[in-house]
C-alpha cells in the first residue's frame, strides 16, 4: 500500500517534503487502523491538487516579492542616473541600441507591473484546490512578469554599456540583485507546475478576476479608453517637463500605442481576453 502510494504520488508530481509527509501519515494511519486506507491513485490525485494550488500561490507571492525588489532597484537605478548628467537618448555608443534600450527601460516595467498585479490578484482569488486552467493562468502571468523584470535587469547592463552614466558599478549591482531574485522566483514558479492538478474548470479572464463579466464584450473599447487616458497623462507629464505640447505628444502617443500593442500581443497570454 505504502509503495503504491509512493508511486502514485511520484506519478502525480508530488515529491520531496509533501510526499514524505503523506507517506508518514499513511504509515501511522495503517498502524492505527485495520489496514484500510483507500485508493492510492485517488488520494495521490487529491494531494497533488492541493499541493499544486498551494505551491502556485506561494510561488506567486515569491514572484511578487522579487518583482517588488526589482521595482525598488529600478527606481534606485534611475535616481543614480539622475545624480549625474542624464545622457541624451541618442548619445549611446550605438545610437540604435541606445534608443532601443532606453525605450525598453520605459515600457518593459509597465508590462511587468500589469502582469505581476494580475498574477497576485488571481493567486489570491482561486480556491484550494483550484482548477488546473486557473493555476496555469497564474503561472503564465508570473512568467511574463518575471521575464519582463529579467529583461529590464539586462537592459540596465546594456544601458550602462551604452551611455556614460554616474555610479555604473552601483547600477550594475542593482541589476544583478534583481537578476538573482527574479531567477529564484522563476525556479519556484516552474516547480509549482509539477504537481498534476486534476480539478477541471474554465481559466477565466481579467473580467472574471474583477467580477465584471458583463464588460467582456467591450474589451477592445475599454483598452482603447485606457490607452487614451494613459497617453494623455504622458502628454501632460511631457508638456510639463519639456515646456511644449510637441514634447508631450512625443511621449504620449508612443505610450498609448504601446498599451494597445501590449494588449494585442499579450492579451490571451495574460488572460486579459479570451
Amino acid at each position, binding site marked *: 500500500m505504502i509503495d503504491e*502510494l509512493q508511486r502514485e504520488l511520484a506519478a502525480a508530481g508530488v515529491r520531496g517534503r509533501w510526499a514524505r509527509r503523506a507517506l508518514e*501519515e499513511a504509515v501511522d*494511519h495503517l498502524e*492505527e487502523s485495520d489496514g484500510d486506507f483507500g*485508493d492510492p491513485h*485517488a488520494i495521490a490525485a487529491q*494531494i497533488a491538487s492541493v499541493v499544486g494550488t*498551494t505551491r502556485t*500561490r506561494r510561488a506567486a507571492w515569491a514572484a511578487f516579492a522579487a518583482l517588488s525588489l526589482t521595482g525598488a532597484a529600478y527606481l534606485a537605478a534611475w535616481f543614480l542616473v539622475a545624480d549625474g548628467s542624464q545622457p541624451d537618448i541618442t548619445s549611446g555608443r550605438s545610437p540604435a541600441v541606445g534608443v532601443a534600450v532606453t525605450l525598453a527601460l520605459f515600457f518593459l516595467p509597465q508590462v511587468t507591473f500589469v502582469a505581476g498585479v494580475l498574477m497576485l490578484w488571481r493567486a489570491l482569488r482561486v480556491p484550494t484546490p483550484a482548477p488546473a486552467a486557473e493555476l496555469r493562468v497564474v503561472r503564465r502571468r508570473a512568467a511574463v512578469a518575471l521575464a519582463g523584470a529579467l529583461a529590464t535587469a539586462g537592459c540596465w547592463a546594456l544601458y550602462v554599456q551604452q551611455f556614460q552614466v554616474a555610479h555604473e558599478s552601483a547600477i550594475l549591482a542593482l541589476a544583478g540583485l534583481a537578476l538573482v531574485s527574479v531567477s529564484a522566483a522563476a525556479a519556484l514558479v516552474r516547480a509549482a507546475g509539477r504537481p498534476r492538478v486534476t480539478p477541471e474548470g474554465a481559466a477565466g479572464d481579467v473580467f472574471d478576476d474583477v467580477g465584471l463579466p458583463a464588460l467582456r464584450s467591450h474589451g477592445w473599447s475599454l483598452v482603447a479608453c485606457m490607452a487614451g487616458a494613459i497617453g494623455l497623462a504622458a502628454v501632460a507629464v511631457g508638456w510639463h517637463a519639456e515646456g511644449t505640447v510637441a514634447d508631450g505628444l512625443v511621449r504620449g502617443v508612443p505610450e498609448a500605442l504601446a498599451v494597445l500593442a501590449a494588449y494585442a500581443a499579450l492579451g490571451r497570454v495574460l488572460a486579459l481576453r479570451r
Partner: protein
Amino acid sequence: MRADVSRGHLDLLLLGAVAKEPLHGYAIVEAIRDASEGAFELGEGTVYPALYRLEAGALLASDASTVNGRRRRTYRLTAKGRRELTAQKRDWSAFVRAVEAVTA
C-alpha cells in the same frame, strides 16, 4: 448516510472533530465515526487531502512528533479555524431550520 452528504460538509466535520482537542489523522476519522454513531464513514485516506487543504487555508495547524517510532502529525484548530467553525455551524443550523420548516 449517503457519502455525498458527508462529503458536502467535510470541512465542518473536520473542524468540529479537532475543536475539543488536537488529533492525528486516524483519530479524526474515529472521532467523527464515533460521535456520529457510525453515520459518517469518511473514506480513510481521503481525509488527508482535506486536512492539507484546511491547513493551507490556515484553518488548521499541525505539529509533528514521534510516537512508537513512527512520525505522527497532530492537527489543531487555529483562531481563524475556530471563527470558521462558528460560522459554518451557524449556517448549518439555519439550513436545518429552513429545511424543517419546508418539510414539516
